């Protein structure tokens, strides 16, 4: 069977939802003839026409605003930010309009904002960021960051069907690197559920997105030393699946929180606090964080390599924690 890439999985998920529901439409920059900067929407113009594949001016705020307005009319817009770095141009529409309208006046805004994120592609400061923490600090939003092709497809489908605004981060470095066998039959993946990506007994790494693979590489190496590392893939960053995280930490008694986004104010800090509050008596060592240092994402390879967390950094901390 042919393997499906992560980018193709996202494309299939959107395609299936557009076939299923005539109210689903796409709005963003260069989606139509060009097929999107990463070709996620390739072929959709031909299949669904200009009415449902809307190329817009370079106006991120208007793209998200228009998606909100269309969602009030019963439609299911899927908006694309060409790079997650540009989502800041639409920040007000996302955090002040979309996130709050259900709470304020009972008006749901079921939109999906897709945002290709992440580094490792020498994109420099404006094509590499991981801005998920900004949105995890915004009640009313749901935030998703899949690591596998299976989850990318199942979660984009759930996001489109969800009745709340969803920010959907797709990691660019995974688009063509990750390839999997996907089920023939239709499936979805529930929002709000983490999963144990790899079972282990000695310590837990909680992570998401591309860092799942850094953790996996580290786990393979550590296994040779007899250290068994469990990997929890969050998949959904908001709402947080506390139960799965705490269950793993209670089992292994040691926790590392790993993300590609910068350290201060990152999701790791929030998770560390929750583990300290709710699983303190199970801990046999300090809760550790591994994240990018607090600086912009640099361009030049040696600088970017130094910036990004990787398997080597995970191995060092995991060894230390194992022997603690």
């Amino acid at each position, binding site marked *: 069977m042919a393997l499906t890439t992560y980018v193709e999985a996202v494309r299939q998920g959107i395609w299936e939802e557009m076939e299923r529901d005539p109210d689903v439409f796409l709005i963003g920059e260069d989606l139509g003839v060009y097929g999107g900067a990463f070709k996620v929407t390739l072929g959709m113009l031909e299949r669904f026409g200009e009415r449902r594949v809307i190329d817009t001016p370079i106006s991120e705020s208007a793209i998200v605003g228009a998606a909100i*307005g*269309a969602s*009030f*009319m019963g439609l299911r817009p899927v908006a694309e930010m060409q790079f997650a770095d540009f989502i800041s141009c639409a920040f007000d529409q996302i955090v002040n309009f979309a996130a709050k309208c259900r709470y*304020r006046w*009972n008006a749901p805004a079921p939109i999906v904002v897709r945002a290709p994120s992440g580094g490792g592609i020498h994109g420099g400061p404006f094509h590499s960021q991981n801005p998920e923490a900004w949105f995890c600090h915004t009640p009313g939003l749901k935030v998703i960051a899949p690591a596998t092709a299976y989850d990318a497809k199942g979660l984009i489908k*759930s996001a489109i069907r*969800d*009745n709340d605004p969803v920010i959907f981060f797709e990691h660019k470095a995974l688009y063509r690197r990750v390839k999997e066998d996907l089920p023939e039959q239709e499936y*979805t993946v529930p929002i709000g559920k983490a999963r144990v990506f790899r079972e282990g007994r000695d310590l837990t790494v909680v992570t998401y997105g591309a860092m799942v693979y850094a953790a996996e590489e580290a786990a393979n190496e550590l296994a040779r030393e007899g250290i068994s590392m469990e990997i929890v893939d969050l998949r959904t960053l908001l709402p947080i699946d506390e139960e799965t995280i705490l269950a793993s930490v209670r089992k292994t008694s040691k926790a590392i929180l790993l993300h590609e986004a910068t350290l201060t104010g990152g999701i790791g800090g929030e998770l560390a606090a929750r583990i300290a509050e709710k699983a303190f008596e199970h801990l046999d060592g300090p809760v550790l964080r591994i994240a990018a240092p607090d600086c912009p994402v640099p361009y030049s390879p040696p600088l970017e390599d130094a910036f990004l967390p990787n398997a080597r950094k995970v191995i060092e901390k995991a060894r230390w924690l194992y022997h603690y």
Partner: protein
Amino acid sequence: MAAVKPMGFSAGLSFSEALDSEAGLARQALYYMQLMREVEERIERKLYRQGKIVGGVYVGRGQEAICVGAGLAAEPDDMLFPCHRDLALYFIRGVHPRQVFAQYMGRVGGLTRGKDGNMHMGDLRLRIVAIISAMAASVPVAAGAAMAQKYKGSRDVTMVFFGDGATSRGDWHEGINLASVQKAPLVLVCNNNHYAYSTPLDKQMACENVADRAPGYGIAAEIVDGNDVFAVHQAARRAVRHAREGRGPYLIECKTFRMTGHSAHDPGDYVPKHLWEEWAQKDPIDRVRRRMIEEGWAVESELDAISAGIRRDVDAAIEWAEASPFPDPSELLEHVYDPAPRSI
């Protein structure tokens, strides 16, 4: 042709004349303008000073002709995006004044059950979308609503309201540009009241009129006397027809003046005195009333009786709102998310 179902809150009040005649329009317009003025007077000058309004107060005194003239040109299925000086739009769509008082007082009887205050209210069933505080954010959202109307093949249009200050924000420009490119049925109604909070127009923009910006986006525009409800209504009818016919967005700039500070806590003492005096002579309610009597459409005693009816209704509405309870703290976390997500 404007087929808004009139909502008279006064007992026995009915609008028998169609809006097509000036006399019929005058009667309905006067009612809604007076109701808006009376409700806002009570909120700003009485309830606020009594400490019964728990937050800010923003009124449209002197600007009532704009939301009334334009609102009466919309069909019930058309979408409305009011700004914070367009209270009468809610009454035209059937929101009761008592809900507005309760909204301002933070009671459960308000449109947001105390989740938000003042003019931050909407109801999708009534096709009214609530503003957020960052002015002009409504414009791209309204553009999207208009695009959705076109997507669905309906004949409905969307009307979005804003002040001159909002036209300085990027969202205003992005939203209009997108709507124009998409030829979306969007009617843009600007109340140019010469001040954005304390900042006068000449510090807000270097062109003379907001409408001067329209050609840059390839949209139709006109400028009207915003204190003349007949002129606003006719312009709004032209705009709605243009949008309904699929010819894209249409901007109406209504020249008016804010006869109040930015909000109840602002005395507006930065406004030169002669401007207050000059614009007081152009009061939109006085003008309609005078014309109705001059034209013989109504006699003074009849209009006095309608005013008295409005005051009585407003008294009762305030009483109702004050009896409405404050929300229970147990409601704090309700409606952050869909309580019953669609099963998948």
